[in-house]
């Protein structure tokens, strides 16, 4: 039993040193992929109540949209190309609404 545990531990150590970067990168990129979608869902969740947000909140949301767009622009590959097109449009609608609400408040 002890030998099995020892063997498994040594194998895992070997795997980590030989493929560690690959594993970390793969997990990291999968996380990063979900990460930007989560950021999109968070930042655009307030569109229903855009008019009730303060100017500072609206400015913050617009900045987050702009930062997110930069990340979306980096998407590539077949799936990435599609996602770039879809989310650029969706994000633009959301960003433009916040900008619209901000201008309304500033005019007021």
């Amino acid at each position, binding site marked *: 039993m002890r030998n099995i545990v020892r063997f498994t531990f040594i194998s895992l150590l070997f795997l980590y040193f030989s493929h560690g970067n690959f594993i970390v990168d793969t997990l990291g990129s999968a996380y990063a992929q979900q990460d930007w979608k989560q950021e*999109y*869902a968070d930042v655009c*969740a*307030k*569109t*229903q*109540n855009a008019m009730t947000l303060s100017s500072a909140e609206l400015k913050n949301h617009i900045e987050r949209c702009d930062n997110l767009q930069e990340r979306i622009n980096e998407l590539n590959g077949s799936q990435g190309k599609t996602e770039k097109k879809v989310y650029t*449009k*969706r994000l633009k609608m959301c960003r433009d609404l916040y900008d*619209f609400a901000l201008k309304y408040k500033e005019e007021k």
Partner: protein
Amino acid sequence: MKKALFFTGLLVFTISIALAQTGVKKRRPLPFEYGRVVINNYSETSHISPVVFDHWLHRAKFTCRICHVDIGFAMQTEVTDIRAADNINGYYCGTCHNGKDTFSSCKNDFTPKDSATCDRCHSLGKKIVKKYDFREFVKDWPRERLGNGVDWEKTEEQGLITPVDFIEGVSIKREKLADQADFELGAKVEGMPDILFSHRKHTIWNGCELCHPEIFIGIKKGITKYSMVDIYDGKYCGVCHKSVAFPLLDCQRCHTEEVR
């Protein structure tokens, strides 16, 4: 002299024929055709028939926002630039037409056996028997005079349709929309009743970002000046009410207030 007169007459006739308008009057679409969109971004270049999209079937099942905000279809035909790869990747039509929720749209491993499925959308110029028959589909719904001949608002009020407003994994979990107050818009022509704009109904179906600021850019009521000419040109209300929502000929649906 007679010859000169004949040739002058002939010349005038030829010029008037050449300059005559070749007919600008369009046939009014039949109820089942109203709101139909033909999408041909890449179909013909890929040797396949363009897509015929029937709005009536989709609007009976989904709110405008699901497709035009959450899925990302543009408000103008062919602007979305849909590719088969986008559908295969699970976006645009492929969001629902994925082989699980409903029949699959576009495939990498296409075989001639699939042609009947392709024809369900890529049907322009083909005699396809659609799965849903318009007349049968709407037969018990409240009627309207124009457009599809359906009063969509009443149909929903009576619970005959329940348009979906959230798709898991696609829509964002948004906060509840605050009730929007309807407001009056003054008619520009004397004797024409004012408009009572149903802001509440529009926001329920569309959300905010579908109209603001893409369609209505003015940040304050009354700032954006537009006329019926603009609307007939497909701008402002005309984005939807020229082709999909009840048509502009149905004046009384908007101009509802008493004449002052």
